[in-house]
């Protein structure tokens, strides 16, 4: 059997993959373009408004996963309370929208018109003081970032200055998630209780429930997400990003070199919190409500699994992971509700034990030789045997065409 020259398609594929695997920045740029095309063209053109809105909802979790990649994958800080920040961002937005929806005219049947309906049900006579500033949109937009940011700053400084990290930090953030969800459920008159803040209608008079508004909000969300990815990319390419990786791997060495490790960790934790909050606010806008079921322990840890499935240190992985996990959740909850916990449970175990780098960690080189062999077989089935580069020969792959030819 004669040696076959590589076919043009596989040659082109190889040179492309070679560049991809040798230059990290090329790879990242290509991934970014791919992601942008997917989010801005493929999804909006390929999906109806209902499905697009659903994808938009999944993408709001991707903000949280992005934050987790930065703070967990790069910084080594596992927070199990990201739902807190997602929720705070979402609630800030929801408070504004709720106040707009409860103008005196449309709430005329209440015993106290002009306040949100759940307050009226709980016999509140006037708007609580902390609700009043949320009548202004600029304040709300600021609060979406500042409120979660401040909380993360306080928690981060308190913990990291005392060099608390690792599992202790994880447990304490989890307890904070638990506290906030109990608080929201318990103070029904102020927060809407277990139902959350519902019946959101308009944003400065613009109806957010129409199909057109949903498409526009999807685009706003997608652009913000792409912006967040760019922010993350520039962060991890900077010196700060290297420092983060260094302190993840050998915290003491970074400390002894003279860097302020605590401030560095606090910074990335605050950044992650703010990203989550943006996700939360976009969630409220696109889905039209906010409830404590996105704040507590379970949603917080589900967001960790999104980041872990995508690859804990891959910004792009975080987005695909969020899409995949949440699509899976919707699919299973609709079709086999009793299987969903099994699926996500085993996913947790597998992602830790079998493929700790998630989707992004699937070996590019292995995939490359696999795809190459497929391409070659596809074009020249009879002579597609010889492999010009020294690659580990796979008996299963080479044996099949031999029996054919």
């Amino acid at each position: 059997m004669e040696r076959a020259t590589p076919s043009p398609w596989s040659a082109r594929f190889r040179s492309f993959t070679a560049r991809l695997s040798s230059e990290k920045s090329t790879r990242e740029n290509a991934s970014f373009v791919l992601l942008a095309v997917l989010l801005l063209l493929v999804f909006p053109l390929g999906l109806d408004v209902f499905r697009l809105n659903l994808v938009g909802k999944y993408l709001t979790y991707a903000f949280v996963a992005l934050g987790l990649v930065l703070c967990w994958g790069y910084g080594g800080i596992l927070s199990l309370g990201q739902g807190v920040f997602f929720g705070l961002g979402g609630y800030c937005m929801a408070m504004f929208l709720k106040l707009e929806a409860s103008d005196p005219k449309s709430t005329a049947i209440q015993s106290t018109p002009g306040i949100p309906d759940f307050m009226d049900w709980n016999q509140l006579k006037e708007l609580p003081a902390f609700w009043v500033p949320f009548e202004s949109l600029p304040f709300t937009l600021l609060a979406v970032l500042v409120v979660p940011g401040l909380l993360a700053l306080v928690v981060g400084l308190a913990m990291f200055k005392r060099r608390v990290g690792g599992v202790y930090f994880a447990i304490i953030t989890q307890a904070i998630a638990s506290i906030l969800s109990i608080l929201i459920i318990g103070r029904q008159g102020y927060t809407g209780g277990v139902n959350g803040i519902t019946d959101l209608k308009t944003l400065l008079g613009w109806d957010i429930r129409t199909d057109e508004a949903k498409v526009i909000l999807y685009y706003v969300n997608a652009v913000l997400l792409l912006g967040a990815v760019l922010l993350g990319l520039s962060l991890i390419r900077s010196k700060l990003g290297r420092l983060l990786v260094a302190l993840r791997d050998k915290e003491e060495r970074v400390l002894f070199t003279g860097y302020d490790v605590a401030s560095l960790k606090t910074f990335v934790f605050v950044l992650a919190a703010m990203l989550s909050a943006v996700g939360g606010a976009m969630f409220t806008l696109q889905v039209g409500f906010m409830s404590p079921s996105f704040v507590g322990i379970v949603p917080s840890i589900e967001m960790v699994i999104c980041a872990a499935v995508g690859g804990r240190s891959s910004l792009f992985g975080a987005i695909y992971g969020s899409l995949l996990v949440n699509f899976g959740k919707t699919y299973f909850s609709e079709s086999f509700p009793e299987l969903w916990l099994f699926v996500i449970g085993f996913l947790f175990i597998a992602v830790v034990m079998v493929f700790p780098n998630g989707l992004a960690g699937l070996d590019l080189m292995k995939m490359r030789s696999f795809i190459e062999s497929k391409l070659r077989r596809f074009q020249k089935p009879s002579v597609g045997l010889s492999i010009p580069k020294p690659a580990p020969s796979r008996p299963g792959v080479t044996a099949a065409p031999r029996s054919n030819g």
Partner: protein
Amino acid sequence: MDLSIWAMQAFNGLSTFCVLLLMALGLAIIFGQMGVINMAHGEFLTIGAYTTFLLSQAGSVLGDWFQTWYFPVAIVVSFVLAGAVGWLVERFMVRHLYRRPLDTLLATWGLSLVMQQAFRSGFGAREVSATLPDWLMGSLKPTATIDIPINGLFMMALTAALTGLVVFGLTSTRFGVWVRATVQNRAMASAAGINTRKVDELTFAIGCGLAGVAGAAFTTIGSTGPTSGSLYIVDTFLVVVFGGAERLIGTILSAFSIAQTQAATEFFMTGSMAKVLTLSTIIVILMLRPQGLFSIKVRR
């Protein structure tokens, strides 16, 4: 204020204390001694609780004597069953993750989800209650207004006995010496001829077994559902962390103070607000004093 109200309130606090301490004992051993986070700990409690429930139903087949005395049997069976599952988990999962504590946390969380769903498929989503034997029913009335239920007293006695046993085991038996030596300096312990792998394996199994016993005790004061155990997991972790993870006395005291704070504040406000207040206090204290109430200095 009436003294009897205080007494009853303190007794409520003691019941919470028992649940927390029983769960924290196993967790303190696993987390404190091995540094491993077992998020599925609550599910081992549920294993014990369902075992006890099944055995309480078996009385109708095996006769009245069993119905009366099933409880001691249930404690032993719960310990063995939960311990065996724990042993398997250590063997096939946790062992491979000792160097990655955060990953252990995620993997055991996944395990807890799987176990919860398995309970739900096996026993149904509805909560079940074990039929209590006659000698656990009723209550003591030292005065006309104070009413102390016997199952609560029994639970306290069991907690005291179990805590004593664990303390005795850790301080005065050869195995306890091995465990402590492994915790303090693994390499040295291993050089001194201690099989540290075996110690890890057994410590984990015993910790899970203790959770099983906690589950058996749990059935005397409450009903069991698929998620009963996970309700307590965060509180229990806070108990262990607050107490200072390496000292058992810290665990006992922190369980006591948390339970009593909770019970006392519940008197003045709604249950959920009391819980928020208690948990926030713990977190603030932990931020100021991250090592917890008690800690030992260990050179690592």
